[in-house]
């Protein structure tokens, strides 16, 4: 605080605020913690018999909820069943339209030709020819590679889950903006929900709703809803004051103000929220294959488990294409400006896209009655490169593994394992103490209490070891992410051309569901700690790049000119002017990287690990709710600890720099 002020005047960034924290406090904590272990073994490792059996309590509670809980004559089970039934109707209808066909009426599903062309027409309507071509080709891929049915299964859940999640999110977002009490309850809940990995949602859902499409969809809806709510809050709160006042002065009732002024004015933000809902939904649907949701995710899971990498690549590509198609369509729609037609434009001109689609739909429907291959492409007409890819991968590993293998083993044995052992050795009073000291110095008493008690809770509920393994994986990966990501971000900020390429790659990488990143990692490195770390790297480096770039871009031109005028060399300008200014932003990027890395550790459980992610994964088939849920919350807790410390630091920095 006072220290930060005095030292920061000279060189306001340099991490000195952190260094200038009285380091002796940390020394005292560390030395004290290690000393304590000599007094009582429980300070080195918390004894198992002192663990609070929260796991068992939660598991038993959910068992009771699923089997016995009742209000009057209505059991909780009736309630969950009612929800299932309610959700299964729209899902069945969508599935019937997309791939099953409407059996009672003897109608085929919408012919794939119509879906491909329809998507292209939609693309043209929203974003012109290039988008049309891209989305059309992507959909075509799904059909000719024989992935149509699975794709449509996956898409069905997305199409039904998105409107539900968006509607609930919008509703909650509106509540938050209108009532302080709702905000106080809902906002922290969203924080927790967004820090909790996908898989943790699946456990309680399985216990209460069983396996299958509908439970998967339910978990998806819950998981995908917070971003919509956040965007709704942001959108409504950032409507310009003038616009609100003009609405009020026009005599709007509160309801009219919301629906006719606030929501339409924040359309862009709301649409970006919808975009995020769509992307989260897709990511979750893929993961939900773990609870028996059939579709592309499940096929991919099987392929990975059987190491049929060729098939996995094709299925993975299908998921990626669907993700990019959905992303580009929703984004383009968000940024699309309403066009004004002159009064003379005819009805046909105005609705040419819709009319064309209807025409194609009718023609193909009729044609599909005579030529079945128009409805769904028969297997013998599809196409696969699976065997060729398998062969290539095998050949590659045979030859390359001689080189990759030793490198992997060297890194694992000489670098990773010692680090891991260090984390496992670390006595808990040391870590909790250091977190407390950092929390206090950076954010005062509230931050200290929150972060330290979260860490303590992880230990008391018996998750210390998997949590330490998670921290080990995540922080090893994050260090490398920073080493790779920050220089790329710096490079991008130096040249418009590099920036354009880098940002396009970043945007694209961010649309991929995390699951996908496992495919190349398994192909190249097989399983093990290094593979986990590389999968995390692939997924989580993007924010480090992006925030570095943005932070450096945001340095005011005047500052740079002043630096040059003062006679800085380019190197001095960079280190003494630009970096100091950009550091808080870069740290927020690191924060994001940690969040994404944590989310990814849960996924890497699929390729073997011993961390919290694995705890969730193991809890799934045994319906061990307490274990799965708490492990998920444990990951969330680690995320929240990192987030609170870093945000506190960045906020302080920004304030000292006079940004914001």
């Amino acid at each position, binding site marked *: 605080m006072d220290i930060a002020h005095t030292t920061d005047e000279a060189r306001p960034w340099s991490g000195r605020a952190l260094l200038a924290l009285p380091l002796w406090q940390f020394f005292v904590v560390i030395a004290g913690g290690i000393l304590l272990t000599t007094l009582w073994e429980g300070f080195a490792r918390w004894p198992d018999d002192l663990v609070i059996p929260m796991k068992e309590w939660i598991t038993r509670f959910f068992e009771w909820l699923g089997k016995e809980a009742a209000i009057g004559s209505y059991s909780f089970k009736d309630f969950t069943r009612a929800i299932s039934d309610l959700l299964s109707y729209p899902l069945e209808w969508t599935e019937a339209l997309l791939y099953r066909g409407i059996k009672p009426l003897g109608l085929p599903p919408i012919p794939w030709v119509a879906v491909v062309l329809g998507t292209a027409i939609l693309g043209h309507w929203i974003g012109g020819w290039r988008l049309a071509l891209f989305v059309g080709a992507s959909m075509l891929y799904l059909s000719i590679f024989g992935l149509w049915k699975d794709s449509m299964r996956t898409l069905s859940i997305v199409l039904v889950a998105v409107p539900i999640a968006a509607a609930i999110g919008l509703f909650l977002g509106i509540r938050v903006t209108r009532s302080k009490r709702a905000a106080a309850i809902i906002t922290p809940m969203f924080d927790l929900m967004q820090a909790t990995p996908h898989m943790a949602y699946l456990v309680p859902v399985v216990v209460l709703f069983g396996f299958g499409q509908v439970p998967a969809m339910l978990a998806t809806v819950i998981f995908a809803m917070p971003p919509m709510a956040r965007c709704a809050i942001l959108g409504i709160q950032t409507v310009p004051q003038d616009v*609100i*006042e*003009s609405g009020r002065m*026009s*005599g*709007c009732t509160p309801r*009219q103000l919301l629906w*006719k002024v606030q929501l339409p004015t924040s359309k862009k933000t709301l649409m970006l929220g919808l975009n995020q809902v769509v992307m989260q939904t897709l990511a979750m649907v893929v993961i939900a294959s773990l609870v028996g949701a059939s579709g592309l995710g499940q096929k991919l899971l099987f392929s990975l488990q059987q190491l049929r990498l060729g098939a996995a690549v094709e299925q993975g590509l299908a998921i990626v294409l669907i993700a990019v198609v959905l992303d580009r369509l929703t984004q383009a729609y968000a940024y699309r400006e309403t066009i*004004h037609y002159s009064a003379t434009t005819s009805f046909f001109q105005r609705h040419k896209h819709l009319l064309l689609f209807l025409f194609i739909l009718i023609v193909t429907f009729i044609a599909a009655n005579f030529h079945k291959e128009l409805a769904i492409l028969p297997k013998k007409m599809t196409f696969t490169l699976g065997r060729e890819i398998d062969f290539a991968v095998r050949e590659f590993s045979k030859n390359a593994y001689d080189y990759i293998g030793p490198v992997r083993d060297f890194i694992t044995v000489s670098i990773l394992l010692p680090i891991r052992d260090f984390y496992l050795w670390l006595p808990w009073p040391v870590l909790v103490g250091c977190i407390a000291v950092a929390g206090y110095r950076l954010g005062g008493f509230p931050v200290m209490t929150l972060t330290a008690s979260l860490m303590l809770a992880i230990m008391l509920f018996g998750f210390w070891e998997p949590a330490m393994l998670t921290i080990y994986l995540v922080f090893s990966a994050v260090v490398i992410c920073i080493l790779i990501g920050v220089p790329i971000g710096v490079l991008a900020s130096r040249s418009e051309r590099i920036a354009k390429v880098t940002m396009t790659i970043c945007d694209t990488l961010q649309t991929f569901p995390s699951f996908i990143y496992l495919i190349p990692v398994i192909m190249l490195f097989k399983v093990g700690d290094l593979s986990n770390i590389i999968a995390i790297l692939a997924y989580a480096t993007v924010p480090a790049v992006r925030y570095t770039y943005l932070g450096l871009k945001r340095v005011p031109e005047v500052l740079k000119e002043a630096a040059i005028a003062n006679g800085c060399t380019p190197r001095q300008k960079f280190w003494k002017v630009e970096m100091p200014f950009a550091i808080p932003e870069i740290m927020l990027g690191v924060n994001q990287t940690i969040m994404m890395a944590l989310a990814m550790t849960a996924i890497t459980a699929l390729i073997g690990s011993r961390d919290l992610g694995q705890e969730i994964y193991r809890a799934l088939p045994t319906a061990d709710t307490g274990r799965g849920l708490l492990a998920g919350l444990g990951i969330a807790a680690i995320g929240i600890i990192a987030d609170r410390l870093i945000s506190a630091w960045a906020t302080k920095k920004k304030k000292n720099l006079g940004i914001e």
Partner: protein
Amino acid sequence: MSDQVQISCRNVWKVFGPDPAGFMKRHGGQPTTEALASEGYIGAVQDVSFDVGAGEILIVMGLSGSGKSTLIRCITRLNDPTTGEIDFEGNNILTAKPKELIELRRHKMGMVFQNFGLLPHRSVLSNVAFPLEIQGIDRRERNKRAKEMIELVGLGGREDYFPRELSGGQQQRVGIARSLAVEPDVWFLDEPFSALDPLIRTEMQDEFIRLQQLLKKTIVFITHDFEEATRLADRIGIMKDGRLVQLSTPEQMVLHPANDYVAEFARNAPRDRIISVKAIMEPAAQNTPTDHPVTGTDRIGAAAERVLTADHPVLVIDHEGLPVGQVDRHAMTKALFGAV
């Protein structure tokens, strides 16, 4: 201008802080500047009283942070004043229920905003028709009235444009048309031209004068531009630190500023276009020559040449040609360049 009072403000306070009402009560409704500062309260509007006559243009002027925008928001109840009384056409607006307030805004008040406050997703026509739409007027009728307003502000032919396709000046014309669509009795303008380029600003001021000659509304107009105020106002109220420092005609303000603060504003005012001959004349002497007299209601700028080139006092006459006084070079020079 008639003598009928349209809006009447009495001892209006708007205080920001943790507990404004309690704070005002503790200080008997008249807290001192020291009390505000020491307890961490901000007096955005402090003890302001004034009347606006029907058909009058009252301009409230002050620097940013002087409380003028808060004041206009108190009158329209976009903000609720902490204490005081505001009568709108004889009814206390501070006790109006939400429903009554909505009715008042739907029929009696129109407001123009500094940053236009247009709805970006609606066309010009639909923006102007918006206040009518939310009253539930059917589409044909409201579009007809909106079109008339758009014609009135000179945007005919751009009904289908979206705000982002218009220049700032055009956007504000839309804002003006929208505020007039409900045919309000009182027209509030909150720095309507401040966001515009100087040239456009003058053009829009002319437009404003033209509209007011047609419509003859009661107007409360906020600006931080003294020249704009002197150009458009019947009376000007100057605000500083939440208080109304002086309320008078532009001419009085230039000739008799209430304090140094007002004088500072008035110093650069175009005196030749503000001060009338009448204000600086003295009683006519018996021997004043009667050739080429000047008219009393003329601004001194128009009479300056005649007076300054004559080597004797010039006779001042009224509209019927009757002599009402005389003015000499000395008085003219003093009026033109200010008392030194």
